[in-house]
């Protein structure tokens, strides 16, 4: 017997015992502290999803209140101060606390399952990111409920957001909320990139990566390049407010357009890192329900990448009326138009897949069809606002409000709900009710269009954005009233979705591992997936593993069962490379997030907080990275 015992391998064990041992080693510890120390990507992703939907609910209620205020002229449902806080909270929450996090959360849940691994890379960072996001969101809403919500719009343009025009700390809360959520966003981006590049199941070469994973990967790269711009922007704002740096103070040589450039250099790609994952949902759902592989898979993936590149070259179309040189503006018209081409390619490929397939009309596909309808409208009005002359009329009017709600709700929330219906069985083990699903779809589709289509006309008839009321002399009453009715119907559809999830989650039909006969690896594991995801790591032999191996998936052998072990593979061909240990659960990411969170919050009141806060942060990080006396990983 050698000095160090040879670790136990999965080849030494039978199926039931192997599974029991893996569950034991990968499961989250019991008890409240165990729950807090979880590093399981599925648990953390679910926490993200639930939190993001909770914030969406709050921001959605805010939207309903705004619609009630605007339903009739000179209404008094909300005063101007509340109204301004609510539209700021609505935009900030929907963009920073709902849309981006929930898309990333789906990636955190699905990417490891789709590529056949057991956790994300950097699972503790994942936990840390979630806690920080949670604190940032709660912090912003606590400010709002204490009547201190930011009131300068989700874009917080200077000089309106500088101390001179915004006394108190309202704009600071906005700026710091950005910092919290961006740190968590960047954390997830890094995890997704490394997970996708290095942890794919053997045989999943680049051309066999599922489109959803491609979408998540491309989005993660966009986040990595775009988010620093807004962090710089919000940090410069807070520095101007706290320590008088004068980045945006005109009297001392500052420049207000700088803020807009930085904000939109992030802000435009942001729209696409909400939209690209949504198209990736669609490209996952359509093949399953069209009963055929995606038509033009390579073209769709290349379109995703092209969209990502283009999206960094159009930020100026948010600034067409700031008086920039006309010729330069025309360049941004051309680039804004050009991005319609990759989107067009995707739409054509989806239609072709449906055309040549045998569509099965279940709720996820209905939402996808509704998405195509709404998104084509939003895309076409997008082409209109890309034109400088047209934009000078419709910019900052309800036409633009209509346009981006068609793109963001029609183009992203509809696919998101499709994704909820599609993957709910995987996550919960139960099917959502199909009857309620159909009602949900038709009410959402009808309510959405009634709420937002009239806004196009309102904008053309001269109604600007961000006004808390309008006079009865203006001819806007009827359409606003119709729009409010639509908004209430649309909001009701979300209650229906919530009820469906509660009812079906408790008493729904059991789903089984692959209820839709999907083609990707997440359908290979039981529903809900066990803590280790896969008892044996599958080997991939084609782009649609579940359709190519209907009997049983081939799997690799030789993984340790005595510790959390994952397989690292090569970047392009996904050949098995290294077996590596994946971190155990730890409470330290939570403590670190608390330390960082308090430092951010405190820094609103004194810049010294950065110095004082460094101490607890250093302590918690030391605890987090404290070396364990374990053996080096084996190659």
């Amino acid at each position, binding site marked *: 017997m050698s000095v160090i015992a040879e670790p136990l391998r999965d080849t030494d064990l039978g199926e039931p015992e192997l599974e029991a041992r893996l569950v034991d080693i990968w499961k989250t510890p019991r008890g409240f502290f165990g729950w807090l120390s979880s590093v399981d990507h599925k648990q953390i992703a679910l926490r993200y999803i639930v939190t993001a939907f909770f914030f969406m609910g709050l921001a959605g209620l805010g939207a309903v209140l705004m619609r009630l205020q605007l339903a009739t002229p000179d209404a008094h449902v909300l005063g*101007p101060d509340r109204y301004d806080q609510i539209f700021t909270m609505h935009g900030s929450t929907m963009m920073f606390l709902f849309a981006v996090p929930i898309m990333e959360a789906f990636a955190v849940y699905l990417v490891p399952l789709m590529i056949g691994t057991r956790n994300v890379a950097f699972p503790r960072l994942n936990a840390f990111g979630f806690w920080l996001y949670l604190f940032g969101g709660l912090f912003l809403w606590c400010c709002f409920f204490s009547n201190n919500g930011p*009131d*300068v*719009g989700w874009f917080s*343009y200077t000089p*309106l957001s500088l101390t001179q*025009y915004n006394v108190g700390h309202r704009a600071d809360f906005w700026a710091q909320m950005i910092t919290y959520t961006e740190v968590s966003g960047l954390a997830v981006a890094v995890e997704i990139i490394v997970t996708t590049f290095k942890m794919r199941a053997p045989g999943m070469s680049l051309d066999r990566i599922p489109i959803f994973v491609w979408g998540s990967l491309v989005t993660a790269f966009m986040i990595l390049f775009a988010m620093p711009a807004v962090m710089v922007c919000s940090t410069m704002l807070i520095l101007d407010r706290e320590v008088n740096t004068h980045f945006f103070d005109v009297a001392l040589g500052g*420049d*207000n357009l700088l803020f807009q450039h930085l904000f939109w250099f992030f802000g435009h790609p942001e729209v696409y890192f909400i939209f690209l994952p949504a198209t990736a949902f669609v490209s996952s759902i359509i093949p399953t329900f*069209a*009963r*055929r*592989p995606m*038509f*033009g898979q390579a073209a769709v993936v290349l379109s995703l990448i092209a969209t990502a590149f283009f999206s960094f070259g159009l930020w100026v179309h948010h600034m067409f*009326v*700031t*008086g920039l040189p*006309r*010729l330069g503006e*025309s360049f941004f*018209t051309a680039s804004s*138009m050009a991005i319609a*081409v990759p989107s*067009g*390619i995707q739409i*054509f*490929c989806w*239609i*072709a897949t449906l*055309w*040549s397939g*045998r*569509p099965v*009309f279940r709720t996820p596909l209905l939402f996808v*069809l509704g998405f195509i*309808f709404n998104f*084509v409208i939003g895309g076409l009005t997008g*082409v*209109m606002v890309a*034109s400088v*002359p*047209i934009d*000078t*009329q*419709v910019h*900052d*009017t309800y036409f633009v409000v209509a346009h981006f709600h068609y793109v963001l709700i029609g183009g992203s929330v509809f696919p998101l709900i499709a994704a909820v219906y599609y993957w709910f069985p995987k996550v919960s083990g139960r099917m959502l009710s199909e009857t309620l699903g159909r009602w949900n779809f038709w009410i959402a589709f009808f309510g959405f269009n009634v709420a937002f289509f009239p806004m196009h*006309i309102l904008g*053309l*008839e*001269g109604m*600007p954005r*961000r*006004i808390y009321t309008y006079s009865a*002399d*203006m*001819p806007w009453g009827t359409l606003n009233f119709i729009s409010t009715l639509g908004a209430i119907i649309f909001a009701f559809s979300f209650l229906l979705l919530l009820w469906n999830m509660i009812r079906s989650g408790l008493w729904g039909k059991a789903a089984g591992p692959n209820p839709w*006969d999907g*083609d990707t690896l997440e359908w290979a594991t039981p529903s809900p997936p066990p803590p280790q995801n896969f008892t044996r790591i599958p080997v991939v032999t084609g782009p649609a593993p579940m359709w190519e191996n209907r009997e049983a998936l081939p799997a690799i052998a030789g993984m340790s069962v005595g510790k959390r072990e994952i397989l690292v593979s090569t970047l392009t061909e996904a050949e098995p490379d290294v077996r590596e240990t994946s971190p155990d659960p730890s409470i330290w990411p939570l403590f670190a997030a608390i330390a960082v969170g308090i430092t951010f919050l405190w820094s609103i009141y004194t810049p010294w907080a950065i110095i004082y806060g460094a101490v607890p942060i250093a302590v918690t990080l030391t605890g987090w990275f404290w070396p364990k006396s374990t053996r080096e990983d084996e190659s």
Partner: protein
Amino acid sequence: MKGFAAGFGCLAALTLPACSSVQSALAPEGDTARAILKLFLLFVAVCTAVFVIVMAFLLIAIVRRRAAAVDPVLRPDPIEERRMAWVIGGGVAATVIILTVFTLASFLTNKTFAEPRPHGLIIKVTGHQWWWQVNYESHDASQTFETANEVHIPVGQPVKLDFESPDVIHSFWVPNLAGKQDLIPGRYTTLTVKADKPGIYRGQCAEYCGIQHAHMAMYVVAQNQNEFERWRAQQLKSASAPSNADLWHGQQVFQSSACAMCHTISGTNAGGQVGPDLTHFGSRMTIAAGTARNSMGNLTGWIVDPERMKPYTRMPAVALTGPDLIAVSHYLESLK
């Protein structure tokens, strides 16, 4: 194109019985707004066609009849796949052509506005939280004057508006005449407008500028040359002297109360620079930047309790006795 424009107008009118041209991009009365609407209608026509075609393909894709299922998953037929690839290639080519046409059309339209145009009048418009200061400029200092929330222009002449903002970003937008233009602190921006026929065109701030962004409107009054000259001559004059005891009392109240701290009435001691110039207040159509009609009732209400009409306005309530209030309101209304 004309027919289509009319059709679109009717559609808008149908959805909105009281379709008014007070503040609307759909009822252009100036060359810029007209060129933009023409371009917009081109976009709407082409985009509607694209939408109908795409939806038709989608509809056929989901309802068309197909052979009975054999395998659980369809094996794509290579010949059909190639045919679809060609169709999609055609679709992409059409998209590229349409987008190129759109880009060129909007570039050419844009070019006509960007080129410097000969203009007569230069008017400086300054955005404040939450009202518009309007200065008629001239090389001759005696020909300059100031007014607020109302821009009078002669019909048929391009008028150059120079913008300035001392506080936050605002945006000048009178959709019947032209697109909008931001007023950005520290930056010079400008817009040339031309009205085709006499009329009163409403506009309002289009960039969120704080809590009363909703009540920051202004009117462009396009007049025949003669009428405009008459108006200008009147504006160049100092305020008319009080013609009776009541008005004289009103003037005294104005000068001795907080009013004069913020407002100017030329020809009197009132020389405040914070709020609008009131020299010809009685000739204006509205008060509080388009918030209410200019009438005795509204004016007294506004002076007594500005917050009621326009919460958080920068104008403070001025404590006046009943008779003083009536007198000062009469006096202000007499300033034609």
